[in-house]
């Protein structure tokens, strides 16, 4: 995720003005000086470029970040920063059985909805059947593998899958919010209902929403004693990144998930205690179109991968915020334990321009007098498309193109407006696309999106993932095998094999690591996740993570 920086010239003008004025009057906006007895509100800096619609439907992706985790809870908390470590939430335990086709949850007793009614296993069954009835609500497509969901006894819910579906645990237990049957059963159309007053089991209740601000107050009857103790939480609506960054830098906000250029001088140096941590969660990669020349040639893909000096790209394109990625596809340090030493060694040094050139030469390319390789009279030229709305991506791709020119590949950068970019990527209308796929609690999730052939679609038809159109029955088999085992050792073996595919066939060329944008100041509240205690993803757009973090924050006495 990155923050849009609209209209480069304009925003840099604003940054200039804003930067200058803060230098003149330090902390002029810091109005939130702590009163003696009252707790200061926790203000969040989360620019979404829109005014709040004040809808809280937890199943609609656009409103889910404002209700899932905060107001609605999931069965378990699955931590993507600790290889999917599970913490019980609305369920006390869970177990796979029947060849990993049956998943049984034991539902927590004594939990109450915020309107005082008791929460029960029936609510869980109701929620999942609701998703079955309305596919528009099933944004994790859990019913693509579920057969049925039934209650067993007073406190057990049994999920039956049509196939072994171990990775779906993350979605079923960790992503689907449980809603109250007694209220939702009377909603005529849950797809178009705005759910203006969400009632959940969570630690926070939405207490006031205007287009300019969402306010939450803590649930006084929350079932987890000692948690959710921040009294008031505000999330003002920001239309531009710079105004939001200012709000954060001047200390009005204690928790942000912003892209801030020059974070050291613009944010960290502005107020004592201003800190940041950007944990890597996925890869930002070059997706080569595998259906057309020249990128259907693995030698060209290898040359590209060896030809990019990733640390340079990271430094120039992303202020070093996004660390260099590995061709194995393993995001470090987050998933370091998954990295295959064999695959890493087999690939060798990730930056090796000499090797890149020799690969092209042995593939039949000849270096022309203009410094560009050519084969059969055809120059090796590629166009890289990227999202023109993200100025950092455009800068990054420009550096990549310069790197490729050094090894004799003529690369052109084509920044495209956000929506058109996505429709081109989905339809496979590109040579190379610089983009990011959603990560998950283990490297498997991203690799499955990259390489599972069923995710793809013919060129011209929209494919939500596997944009490069990779198709390998043996990889499909590996992915299916992973889905059938709960053994961590076996999962590691499979991911090791997938890494070998990544370095041998290069279906995707990871360049940088996508990070979670996270700034915080612990002066008024403590308990934020950190590198030494990565208990949840800290970005304010991660569901249910940010609500989970909110439950664990403590005011400073």
């Amino acid at each position, binding site marked *: 995720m990155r923050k849009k920086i609209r209209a480069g010239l304009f925003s840099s003008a604003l940054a200039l003005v804003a930067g200058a004025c803060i230098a003149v009057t330090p902390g002029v906006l810091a109005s939130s000086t702590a009163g003696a007895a009252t707790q200061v509100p926790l203000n969040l800096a989360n620019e979404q470029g829109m005014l709040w619609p004040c809808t809280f439907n937890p199943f609609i992706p656009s409103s889910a970040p404002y209700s899932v985790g905060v107001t609605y809870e999931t069965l378990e908390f699955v931590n993507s920063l600790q290889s999917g470590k599970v913490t019980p939430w609305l369920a006390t335990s869970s177990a796979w059985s029947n060849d990993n086709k049956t998943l049984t949850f034991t539902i927590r007793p004594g939990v109450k909805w915020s309107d005082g009614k008791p929460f029960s296993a029936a609510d869980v069954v109701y929620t999942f059947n609701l998703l079955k009835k309305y596919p528009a609500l099933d944004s994790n497509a859990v019913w693509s593998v579920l057969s049925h969901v039934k209650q067993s006894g007073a406190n057990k819910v049994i999920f039956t899958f049509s196939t072994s579906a171990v990775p779906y645990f993350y979605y079923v237990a960790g992503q689907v919010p449980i809603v109250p049957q007694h209220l939702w059963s009377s909603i005529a159309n849950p*797809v178009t209902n705005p759910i203006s007053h969400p009632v959940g089991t969570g630690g926070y209740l939405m207490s006031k929403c205007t287009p300019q601000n969402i306010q939450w107050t803590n649930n006084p009857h929350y079932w987890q004693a000692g948690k959710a103790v921040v009294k008031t939480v505000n999330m003002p609506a920001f239309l531009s990144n710079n105004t939001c960054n200012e709000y954060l830098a001047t200390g009005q906000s204690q928790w942000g998930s912003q892209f801030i250029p020059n974070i050291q001088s613009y944010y960290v140096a502005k107020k004592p205690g201003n800190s940041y941590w950007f944990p890597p969660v996925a890869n930002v990669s070059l997706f080569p179109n595998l259906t057309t020349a020249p990128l259907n040639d693995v030698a060209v893909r290898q040359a590209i991968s060896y030809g990019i000096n990733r640390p340079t790209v990271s430094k120039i394109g992303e202020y070093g915020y996004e660390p260099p990625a590995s061709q194995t596809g393993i995001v470090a340090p987050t998933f370091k334990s998954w990295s295959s030493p064999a695959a890493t060694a087999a690939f060798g040094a990730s930056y090796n321009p000499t090797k890149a050139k020799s690969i092209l030469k042995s593939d039949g390319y000849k270096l022309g007098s203009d410094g560009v390789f050519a084969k059969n009279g055809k120059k090796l030229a590629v166009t890289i498309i990227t999202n023109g709305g993200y100025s950092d991506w455009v800068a990054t791709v420009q550096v990549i193109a310069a790197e490729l020119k050094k090894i004799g590949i003529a690369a052109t950068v084509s920044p495209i407006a956000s*929506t*058109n970019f996505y429709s081109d990527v989905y339809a496979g209308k590109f040579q190379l696309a610089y983009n990011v796929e959603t990560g998950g609690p283990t490297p498997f999730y991203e690799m499955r999106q990259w390489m599972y052939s069923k995710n793809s679609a013919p060129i011209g038809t929209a494919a939500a993932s596997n944009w490069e159109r990779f198709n390998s029955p043996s990889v499909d088999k590996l992915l299916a095998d992973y889905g059938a085992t709960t053994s961590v050792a076996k999962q590691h073996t499979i991911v090791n094999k997938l890494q070998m595919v990544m370095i041998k066939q290069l279906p995707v060329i990871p360049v940088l690591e996508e990070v979670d944008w996270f700034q915080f100041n612990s002066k008024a509240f403590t308990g934020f996740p950190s590198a030494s205690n990565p208990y949840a993803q800290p970005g304010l757009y991660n569901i249910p993570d940010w609500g989970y973090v909110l439950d664990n924050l403590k005011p400073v006495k």
Partner: protein
Amino acid sequence: MRFLVRRVGFLLVALWAALTVNFFIPRLMPGNPAQAMMAQFRGHVNPSALGALEAAFGVNTHQSLLSAYVSYVGNTFQGNFGISTSYFPLPVSSVIMRALPWSIGLVGLSTVLGFIIGTAIGAISAWRRGGLLDSALPPVFIIISAFPYFWVGLLSIWFFALTLNWFPLLGGYSETATPAWTWSFVGDVLIHAVLPAFTILITSIGGWILTMRNNMITVVAEDYVKMARAKGLKPRRILWHYAGRNALLPNLTGFAMSLGFVISGAILVEYVFNYPGLGFMLLQAVQSEDYPLMQSLFLLITVAVLFAIFLSDVATAILDPRTRSST
């Protein structure tokens, strides 16, 4: 009467054309609203959400273009503009109603004020050509009007909000305030409106001054003004009732046009000040390919401009009898 019928006829034809163009143009854009929404999530949503969103927005329903057009026209006349996809699942009408008062209040008021003040300064400075007022105000305002108004906005934020700390930085009201008809909230709104209104005002006055002053200079040289002077009428009466009334006519059409554009808000000003008006909403609707919202906003702007022009025609007819009789 015949004049009025012709104007109304023109109005209806223009409306129909606008309605039709408005329907087809957004559909020429690539992608669909579900893909646009996926783009907004910036890779933070399970890719399978695309299917769910397409189901929610009904994008793959294979409705023919003609039947979609017929139902669009029908729904428009019933005031049913559909459901906004970027503010899903809110109906478009309620989304627009949230932003409309802010734009009318801010942009409308500052446009009217800009017109009145600019016209008055233009008339007076033409009347006293070479005077103190004429040598000071018009050049200053014309220079200011050459600045892009978002830039003036940025400067005024820097100076008045951040350096002097007189006015709030952003928003239509304090973040934690609850909109209500209370004195404290109205005061809050007014103080938040000062900077954006000031920005629009000082950048728009220049244009009015220039046109009014030029018109006045021509009119003042007319025989009937000399005649009025010769009759010994008071200068003030000549200024406003003889010269001013006639010099105003061309300006009035411009004013009507700009009133129509009040509906579209002032995109950049609203963007710079985080102001919750229609201009920003329009920008956002385009970015997220929210067809229903986009169409309704464009329609609203078109209708507003058409009606404003119609009203200015009528006003011109009242002020200047010649436009009525010549057919």
